[in-house]
């Protein structure tokens, strides 16, 4: 039932004014979220001299985009981000799906220990992982490599998303898997052929979340990479130089970085909503 027709939503007002209020509130919320993005897009389209008067100027240009796109470092940062996001999603899903399944279906000591481990790691503030990870990647010779960035990401995904996955599997009736086991499947067979297909909407949702998480991630990328594996979020921030702030270039990069994330979110949205509802 839509909120506006609920009798307990501002009961004193007539229906049309309830509708108006509701629409205004929605508009306000949307505006609050969309305004920075709008400003960002405007900034990216302004010449460098105009970035401080975004709201006043009438001069628009695509020069910033052209400059950004011809910069090898930025282009390779895009590719790196896309590659690492995709790989991290694939690897972490492989682990998360089975670990979430284990947490949901098995109650033995192994499951309890795993649950406890994840819990402890989740409780540690994200930022306090960074420095130890820096030293570890340094001493293992993984600093500024794909692996050195991929592994921590996968680890974070496992900790954060195993719980979500457990929740999804909790919502799926296990007797389907029992039926499969009686119908000739092994325990693994029941998991792969029955549990996973039933969880597919949830897994798709998780894939979207994983991908966006890594694409948007800044801290690990900043500390664990140098010049060889630049990530888009880091490169974007590097327009802050001692020579001054290159707002227009930063905005152009940001707009471009927004596009893949926007597309993933757009196409993934139906899975995310369906998946989170399971």
């Amino acid at each position, binding site marked *: 039932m839509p909120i506006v027709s609920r009798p307990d939503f501002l009961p004193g007002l007539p229906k049309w004014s309830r509708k108006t209020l509701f629409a205004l509130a929605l508009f306000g919320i949307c505006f609050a979220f969309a305004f920075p993005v709008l400003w960002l897009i405007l900034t990216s389209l302004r010449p460098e001299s105009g970035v401080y008067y975004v709201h006043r100027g009438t001069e628009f240009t695509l020069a910033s985009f052209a400059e950004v796109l011809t910069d090898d470092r930025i282009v390779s940062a895009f590719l790196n981000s896309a590659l690492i996001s995709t790989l991290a999603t694939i690897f972490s899903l492989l682990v998360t799906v089975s670990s979430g399944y284990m947490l949901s279906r098995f109650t033995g000591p192994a499951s309890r220990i795993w649950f406890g481990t994840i819990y402890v790691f989740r409780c540690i503030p994200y930022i306090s992982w960074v420095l130890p990870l820096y030293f570890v990647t340094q001493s293992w010779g993984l600093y500024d490599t794909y692996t050195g960035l991929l592994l921590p990401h996968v680890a974070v995904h496992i900790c954060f998303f195993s719980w979500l996955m457990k929740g999804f599997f909790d919502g799926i*009736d296990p*007797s*389907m898997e*029992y*039926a*499969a*086991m*009686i*119908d*000739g*499947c*092994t325990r693994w067979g029941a998991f792969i052929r*029955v549990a996973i*297909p*039933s969880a*597919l909407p949830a897994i798709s949702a998780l894939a979207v979340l994983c991908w966006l998480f890594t694409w948007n991630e800044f801290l690990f990328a900043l500390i664990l990479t140098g010049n060889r594996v630049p990530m888009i979020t880091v490169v974007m921030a590097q327009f802050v130089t001692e020579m001054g702030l290159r707002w227009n270039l930063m905005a152009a990069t940001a707009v471009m970085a927004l596009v893949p994330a926007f597309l993933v979110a757009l196409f993934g949205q139906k899975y995310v909503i369906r998946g989170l509802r399971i």
Partner: protein
Amino acid sequence: MAAISLSKLNKHYGSLFHAVKDVDLEISDKEFVALVGPSGCGKSTTLRMIAGLEDISSGDIRIGNRVVNDLPPRDRDIAMVFQNYALYQHMSVYDNLAFGLRNKKTSEAEIKAAIDRAANMLGLHELLARKPKQLSGGQQQRVALGRCIVRNPEVFLFDEPLSNLDAKLRAQMRIEIKRLHAAIPTTSVFVTHDQVEAMTLGDRVVIMRDGRVQQVGTPLQVYGKPANKFVAGFIGAPAMNFVSVTVRSDGGATTVEADGLKLAVGGADARALAAYHDKPVIMGARPEHLALGEGAPGASFDAHVEVVEQLGSEILLETRVGSHGITVARVPAETVIARGDQVRVSAQPGRLHFFDPETELPITG
């Protein structure tokens, strides 16, 4: 050919919970056995142990000639119907039915023939292309039955398959299952908490409580000669009335007395109760063995009507006799009776049950 034999079967969950205690049960080939009991009595756990979905703590399970204790479910040649249907949601009905056979590497032609047969039997033809989500509860359960039939297993296991259906559908499916068992006689174990299902479906009924088997017998046996007070109260609807009475004998006649109640007891009952002279016993009277009006001499008592339940075909009366509530069933529907009326109730001679108050075992010889 598959008889099932459970011997000294036990299930412990950790050290605290002993779910199934020393269950011994012989189920013969093609027999339909219903396991019934209140929730938590261990009936489902027993079934799941037969299926191999639950480990056995101790004891043996045989299906046919094989001890199956350590066999995984897929090697036990069984099929199971679950309470919530457990259909594979991402597959069509046809693929659901074919799943087991495909795992056995059966040829598609044979699979199709088997599914055709099952679909005929259960009227599933129009549903074959649909997904389980597009089916009603009753249809889903029929598909689940079909999935069992096509595999042609040695044993059918049913885990409360009718509990999620509404009353009317439940009665229909009960008949369908009965018909199915007549058409394809297969050893079947049916778990339910509904004694009506157990009585109507089972060749024999196994009543369980707190992990122990209370009685095994045909429906008539468990109804007529309950092994203890629990079985007497569990089997039969409405449930048996229990009244704590004291045994008296004046001269040659034995009577049982309670607050507001004095009934003459004769024959075998009187002989059995001789040992309980002046002691309390528990008297059990089924509501359907009580009737309105003056019966045999010494078999009637006065009751105060508290609730009148008109069922159309009969009336159920909740009455008060002294401090005891007593239900009377089978009162003709046309009887003019109202709350607050005083009525005369008579017990059918020889249909009373007596139980020892401590052991709860029947006294009646």
